[in-house]
């Protein structure tokens, strides 16, 4: 009954906010402040999170993980003896909405702590506001946001490390250099977007570092429909390896085109966003075979971090009802781990003082469901741990096979590797 009432309240608020923002705005789905049953004032943690727009899928999955943590921590008695309440709004993956959302969180909702939403653009918009308030900010899924600000209370839950521009493609190039004979040339292609541009800049640096000649280097607009001509041009350059930095629809387009054109190269893949999502994994199925792409987490004997199995089991049960990504390998463990870090910092410092919390997080290696996390001075992970995974032996379009060890084989970093790179690339699987 109470749950039903809450839902009603959320919908009402959502509609009200929509009317405020106007025709161009979508929902703002915040949960209303509630006083706990125990009578103690809840600790309110506020954030914007994409529930719609291009990154809405990831935002939904991340939010589910954060809600799981809220439920877990409240079962344990909350933080500092107070229940925890999440206050969140749909940022629509739109950085223009961030100033309004965070001002409201601070001034109207009077939150105690804030978190970053999902993605670089929205966190880049949130950080200056949070800095002005001298608050702590833990974000998930952003690259190089703190590069210029160097804010000491900013932390990023992304395994790209503090050199994200190059580390995003580093594993790909490291894997390429394990082939015999060593590759000599590379083709680089990617969407003309901020993410892809940064990754491609890093890929060019890595190509130079590993002595690979760039024989093809092209971008394409974000609304590209047809990828066959791009793959044909890539093939004409005859590269030893092909590196792609793409967004979900183009990742599917590039992989389909490579499959249809029977792309001949020794290694193919890259920083292709979307291949981490259940829907695309399931739909592309065998077309993924031999593609080498980054993942944040895949089941392997080397990634059996304490608590991750239990987390994913509960997440996968709840994901169906929440309409979130069914596997939850990409962002959810990191969103949950970010909350674990916050919880441990609050418990250790016995308070909500942002400076004390930041000092604790900087000074300690903290155990989470994604392993022990330590941060560099700029708030990124001290040691990058982006997994480069090769899809192997994918048969049909059954999603369950992706839960098994062996279909997503970790190739890099070596300390997490659980299989060997298959080459040359064969688009037919």
């Amino acid at each position, binding site marked *: 009954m109470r749950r039903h009432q809450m839902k009603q309240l959320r919908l009402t608020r959502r509609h009200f906010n929509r009317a405020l923002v106007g*025709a*161009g705005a*979508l*929902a703002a789905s915040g949960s209303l402040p509630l006083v706990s049953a125990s009578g103690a004032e809840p600790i309110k943690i506020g954030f914007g999170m994409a*529930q*719609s*727009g*291009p990154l*809405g*899928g990831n*935002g*939904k999955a991340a939010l589910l993980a954060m809600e799981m943590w809220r439920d877990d921590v409240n079962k344990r008695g909350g933080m500092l003896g107070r229940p925890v309440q999440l206050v969140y709004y749909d940022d629509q993956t739109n950085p223009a909405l961030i100033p309004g959302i965070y001002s409201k969180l601070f001034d109207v909702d009077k939150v105690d702590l804030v978190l970053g939403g999902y993605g670089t653009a929205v966190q880049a918009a949130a950080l200056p506001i949070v800095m002005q308030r001298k608050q702590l900010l833990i974000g998930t899924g952003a690259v190089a946001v703190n590069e210029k600000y160097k804010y000491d209370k900013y932390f990023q839950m992304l395994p790209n490390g503090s050199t994200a521009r190059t580390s995003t493609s580093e594993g790909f190039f490291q894997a390429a250099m394990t082939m015999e004979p060593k590759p000599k040339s590379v083709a680089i292609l990617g969407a*003309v977007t901020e993410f892809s541009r940064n990754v491609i800049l890093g890929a060019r640096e890595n190509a130079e570092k590993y002595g690979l000649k760039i024989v093809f280097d*092209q*971008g*394409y*607009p*974000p*609304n*590209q*429909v*047809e990828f*066959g*001509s*791009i793959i*044909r*041009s890539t093939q*004409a350059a005859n590269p030893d390896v092909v590196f792609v930095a793409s967004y*979900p*629809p183009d990742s*599917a*387009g590039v992989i*389909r*085109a490579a*499959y*249809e*054109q*029977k792309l001949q190269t020794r290694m193919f893949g890259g920083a292709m966003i*979307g291949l981490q*999502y259940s*829907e*695309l994994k399931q*739909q*592309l199925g065998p*077309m993924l075979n031999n593609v080498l792409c980054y993942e944040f987490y895949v089941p392997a004997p080397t990634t059996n971090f304490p608590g991750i199995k239990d987390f994913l089991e509960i997440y996968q049960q709840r994901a169906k009802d929440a*309409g979130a*990504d069914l596997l939850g390998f990409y962002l959810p463990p990191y969103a949950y781990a970010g909350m674990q870090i916050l919880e441990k910092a609050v418990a250790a410092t016995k308070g909500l003082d942002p400076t004390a919390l930041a000092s604790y997080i900087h000074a300690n290696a903290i155990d989470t469901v994604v392993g022990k996390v330590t941060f560099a001075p700029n708030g990124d992970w001290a040691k990058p741990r982006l997994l480069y995974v090769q899809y192997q032996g994918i048969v049909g*379009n059954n999603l369950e096979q992706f839960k098994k060890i062996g279909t997503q084989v970790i190739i890099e970093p070596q300390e997490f590797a659980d299989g060997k790179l298959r080459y040359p690339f064969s688009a037919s699987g």
Partner: protein
Amino acid sequence: MVTFNLLFNAVVTGVLLGGFYAAVTVGITIAFGMLDIVNIAHPVFIIMGSFVAYIVNRKLGLDPLLSVILGAPLFFLVGVAIFQFYHAAFEKSGKGSLRGLAFFFGILFVIEVTLLLAFGVDYRLVQTSYIGPNIGFEHIDLPLRMVIPFVGSMALVTGLHLFFSRTFIGRAIMAVAQDEFALSLMAVDTVTVRQLAFGVAIATAAIAGGFLIVIQPVDPSLGREYIGRVFAICVLGGLGSIPGTVIAALILGIVETITSTLFGASWAPAVSFAALLLTLAIRPSGIMGR
């Protein structure tokens, strides 16, 4: 290095892409070009058509192009109903143009949000036997994923052309497009004719949506990416001309793929729109405009 093979393949792929663009645009040609209704929501109806195809494929296990059979009549009725409301609320009072634009903008958001709530934000794809395989000739390698929508698109535009040029209702629609006032003086119920035409325009979205999800994954907000493209093709084609739309769509498709091959895909939108501006500078009424 650009070889003859590469260029030849680019042209052929451009033709396939252009054919698909024609199917996507033909509804705008009818609504905007013939009826003067700025239906900015047309691309989101196409996305709705894609989701019908998705349901048909995933839930019923049928070919997504069968959604054409299920979806088109349904979309026709939706179009008829929308026109009824649009006419009563805006056209009748002579406030059709600007307020009508706001109305269709509103429809765009309503449909988009409804799709978001119903399907979530994930990208959706379909599975068919013709996604993946190619048909190859001596120098050409064509993905069936593009060939089938092209053939379907050509059938659609040919059917529409015959409908508008050979049937009584079709000719009546063309007559309304040409001079509605003159027709009303002859006691023709022009509102009903326009209503039917708008229904046909929306029905084409169901068909184009089926083609779209075969070609690329869709999400509820994908329609926005197509707004500029479809209006550009409609204007280039000469506003209201089906053959003009096909020619314009083919030009745009070929220019896009050749630019991708010769100079890189990031130049394609700039070159396409430069071609549009150049054509309009030489022929302001568009390729087949009167």
